[in-house]
């Protein structure tokens, strides 16, 4: 027969569960980080094309993007080997956001010569939903 478990024992066990789950989550890859990071990158770097010569700003943006991609890849590769998380973003979520970036770039390129702030508008329209989604994931973590 089981030893009686009091309400205090139960609360202690529930606290222990909460503590362990928070410890393991702290060691796992933060899914919200790339969303916020890439959102900030878009918001900060797209508007540069409205103010700086694209021949200069373009390569700078590419270098930062490639470095960011490498850091993101290594971060997830290293952490996912140790702890594989329950992904909250389905594959089509990543696909739709990729499509959203492409639409933003196409929109800004098409309107670039007609509208002075085309890249700023595109940067905000594309980047802010990334940041908002990242913050939503962070609040659930």
């Amino acid at each position, binding site marked *: *027969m*089981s*030893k*009686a*478990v*009091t*309400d*205090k*024992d*139960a*609360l202690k*066990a*529930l606290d*222990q*569960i909460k503590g*362990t*789950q928070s*410890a*393991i*989550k702290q*060691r*796992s890859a933060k899914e919200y980080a790339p969303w916020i990071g890439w959102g900030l990158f878009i918001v900060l770097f797209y508007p540069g094309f409205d103010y700086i010569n694209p021949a200069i700003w373009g390569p700078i943006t590419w270098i930062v993007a490639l470095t960011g991609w490498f850091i993101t890849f290594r971060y997830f590769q290293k952490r996912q*080997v*140790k*702890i*594989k*998380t*329950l992904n909250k973003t389905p594959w089509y979520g990543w696909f739709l956001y990729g499509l959203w970036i492409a639409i933003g770039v196409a929109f800004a390129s098409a309107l670039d010569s007609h509208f002075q702030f085309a890249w700023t508008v595109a940067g905000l329209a594309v980047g802010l939903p990334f940041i908002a989604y990242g913050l939503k994931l962070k609040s659930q973590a």
Partner: protein
Amino acid sequence: MDRSYQQLDTLIHQPARLSIMAALAAVKEVEFAALKEAINISDSLLSRYTSALEKADYIKVRKGFVAKRPRTWFSLTAKGRTAFEQHIALLNKIANQAPPPIS
């Protein structure tokens, strides 16, 4: 008198095994060293407890290599996840049976 505690799964309720189950329920899969670090337990105890949980079909063990070094990963089975969720539900039930404070 409520006998909810009698339905508690004694295999899961032991503190270290409860931590193992809790950690595995929060993620898809955890590597041995990361699990050991998160629940602060020795290698031998972790091996012993995971073996017991594996025998009960609560967890799945996967072995592999990373950079030619052997590694072991653990994950919850469907049976283990159900048992853990039922365990939490029972704990919550017991915790909520606390008598109201005397005013």
